[in-house]
């Protein structure tokens, strides 16, 4: 174990812990931008710089391991100036198009600029035109908004084990590109970790503001992984699916179906009224007519041939509660064990 002080507080942590992690353990918040809990430290943004007694240069808290007896300062005029400068350098390139950005309202860069009170940027740079080459059918890349934090590239490599995207070029000309089109699965892991609006979900573009959304926690409706996700709802429509880091078996990840396969919910093709076959064609009907017809037919068949002449298939797609009632209906009301579902298919 190693003992150090952070802002005058004594902290004891295991060897190998970073200063950032040690500070978090005692509720000292160091500003971060490229750092993400699920990823190995990237160390690209310089926001988490701290001063260590005896060292001239400030160090990045996310990549610097603790040492016995060191005294760390996380907040000073000098550090604030360094952080402000780092943000200003980002803003030289990053357009303040927040009003039209889908990430507006929950953008880490926006929050940091606000927190650091940056009201003007003294620096300028020659504008470099960049093509938006990184664009899968579902994920849009806005190269001007990209701050080169490398979270997306790291997540694709470390969380998905895929490595489909990388950085091309350097300096202001650098941008994220797909290095292997076949490998990219449009899972949106990159989107999930992007701290700004550089990567956005194309299906959700201009569909709703983050602060007006309701996010309803639920379970994914596709495979048996049981991922925990949030349906982003505005005006009674699902406009996006998001996740919370560290929640559920998926820990913040999703696959292409879980993240983008929600359009069926609000599809125009949804059935909205009962249908009854009349003269060989399905025609719209009222509930009373439809339910009476089913109840009468089932009752008549049950009376003539017994409950065993009726079969029911319940659903691996429906809830436990729906399934419970369905089998109870077949057993108690129809009087048969002819109930099954598509478990085998």
């Amino acid at each position, binding site marked *: 174990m190693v003992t150090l002080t952070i802002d005058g507080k004594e902290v004891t942590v295991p060897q190998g812990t970073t200063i950032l992690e040690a500070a978090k353990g005692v509720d000292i918040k160091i500003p971060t931008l490229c750092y993400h809990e699920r990823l190995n430290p990237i160390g690209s943004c310089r926001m988490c710089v701290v001063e260590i007694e005896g060292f001239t240069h400030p160090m990045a808290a996310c990549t610097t391991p603790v040492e016995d007896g060191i005294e760390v300062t996380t907040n000073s005029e000098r550090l604030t100036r360094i952080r402000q400068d780092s943000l200003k350098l980002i803003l030289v390139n990053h357009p303040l198009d927040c009003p039209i950005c889908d990430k507006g309202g929950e953008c880490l860069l926006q929050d940091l600029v606000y927190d650091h009170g940056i009201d003007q940027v003294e620096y300028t740079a020659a504008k470099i035109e960049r093509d938006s080459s990184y664009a*899968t059918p579902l994920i849009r890349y806005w190269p001007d908004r990209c701050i080169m934090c490398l979270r997306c590239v790291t997540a694709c490599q470390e*969380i*998905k084990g895929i490595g489909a995207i990388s950085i091309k070029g350097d300096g202001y000309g650098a941008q994220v590109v797909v290095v292997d089109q076949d490998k990219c699965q449009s899972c949106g892991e990159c989107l999930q970790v992007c701290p700004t609006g550089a990567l956005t979900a194309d299906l959700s573009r201009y569909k709703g503001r983050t602060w007006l959304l309701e996010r*309803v*926690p*639920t*379970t994914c*409706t*596709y*495979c*048996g*992984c*049981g991922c925990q996700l949030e*349906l982003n*709802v505005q005006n009674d429509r*699902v406009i996006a699916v998001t996740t919370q880091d560290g929640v559920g078996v998926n820990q913040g*990840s999703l696959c*292409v179906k879980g993240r983008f*396969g929600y*359009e*069926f*919910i*609000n*599809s125009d093709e949804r*059935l*909205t009224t*009962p249908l009854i076959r*009349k003269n060989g064609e*399905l*025609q*719209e009907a009222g509930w009373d007519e439809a339910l009476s017809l*089913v*109840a009468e037919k089932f009752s008549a068949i049950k009376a003539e*041939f017994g409950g*065993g*002449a009726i*079969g*029911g*298939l319940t659903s*691996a*797609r*429906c*809830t*436990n*509660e*729906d399934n419970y009632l*369905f*089998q109870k*209906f077949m*057993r*108690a*009301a129809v009087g*048969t064990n*002819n*109930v099954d*579902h*598509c*478990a*085998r*298919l």
Partner: protein
Amino acid sequence: MTNPIADVLVSETVLVTGTNTTENHPIFANYLKEAVLKHGTKILVIDPRRIDLVDYAELYLQPKPGTDIAWINGLMHIIVKEGWAAQDYVDERCEGYEEFAKNLEKFTPAYVSEITGLTEAELYAAAKLYGQARPASILYAMGITQHTCGTDNVKSLGNLAMLCGNLGVEGGGVNPLRGQNNVQGACDMGGLPNVYTGYQKVDIPEVREKFAKAWGLEAETLDDKPGLVLTEMFPAAAEGKVKAMYIMGENPLVSDPDLTHIEHCVKALDFFVVQDIFLTETAQMADVVLPGISFAEKDGTFVNSERVVQRIRKALTIAGDAREDREIIAELSTRMGYEMKYDSAEEIMQEIAQVTPSYGGISFERIAEKGLAWPCPDSEHPGTPILHVDTFARGKGLFFAIDHQPPAEVTDAEYPFILSTGRVLSHFHTGTMTRKGEGLNKVHSEIKAEINPEDAARLGVKDDDLLAISSRRGSIKVKAWLSDRPASGVVFVPFHFHEIAVNRLTNAALDPVAKIPEYKVCAIKVEKAGGAKKEVSDKKPKKVKKS
């Protein structure tokens, strides 16, 4: 699953067989990759398809489809011979070993090699990789179960895990990956013809009495014999034994084997009711269609592959005049003279907990933040992430002596290829949900048949050429995708697209116990289709006539 998926992070070896995990369980695949990249876990893939996970594997074996029992017995033969078995575990916790071990004797590497096409060296290396590792996990899915010997395949994997002491331990287990959001829950809830909730058997009088009492009925009114399974119901309809069917949230007219026969069976029904959110291919044949609602409009619970019961929550108001599925069922029941009235899904879960010992401690309140793994018998119980820890559910772990059985339909001169079916990453089951929007169709707009380049060259077929594929039951045309994923002689076709309904070809032969169809093996012939390429249109369902 006997163990949670995160357990693979502490496994020394994970045997992955009959599961294309990266496409069908992408989030579980994250754990496998993390295990390899960060924790030194070794992955052993044994699968007729060279799946993407092979890129992360220590060793990959490609046996002939339908030879699982042979290679599993073959590995165990070597493990026993080499003294890698967990003999203390076997002696203390298991029974039936002697007969089982005797059966293994004939599964020599030479004999197994002949059946599976694997080399003796491959078999030895695989046996060593699993047999010497502690703990080692087994992951499998429909590639193991969708065979006429599916039950025996699963029992064989159970034998292997017990032989090496890998059941009831962290990082071990025999772990079937469930393919649908709530297939575990539908089974748990008694959506099976032989059991009530929590696998309580319908033919045990005490169980029947208990349910009769809970449901306010006389015990005699409850059917005392197991009913028909899905794959028996349709043929029974054709025979006139089943007169009416009620299907909720399923699309057998795309998903079931030998579709031409299924259509014939459905047409024979006197009365056919479908409850769904879309006018599926199945609903289009119904006499009455009842509009239910999606997971986004209801409260309730799903059970994932790890047996974790988790909440779903109502996020939207109900579209049009559709109704909650549970309300439709309750109303129908009431109209048939058996009254059902529930004000909420939570009230139903309270009843489930009362009649189901393994769900006794499950309530909406307890799982509000985080799900619970059953068995969870009471309100204080923390749930059971790992099964069979100190003792097996039945007491002693039972070894089975199992012999190799060939598939129901083997290749011959007329039908020389093997067909396997399954899924792709971007679509789900019969496409009723994933094909309804723009997004996933942009990513994956076409279904193609995976064919080995050697076979393609022999047939004079290039990428995107149209193939005519036929079995004894039907034929389809589908574009070719030249891929080294299937071995030579094997073709893989996904079943998501109704207009390329591969289930016109599949064989309805069933496993005698589980009654699961043999989707993974049937005999087909493959030819280059003549004439111009025909684009397949994504036809929308027929318009409903307004009354």
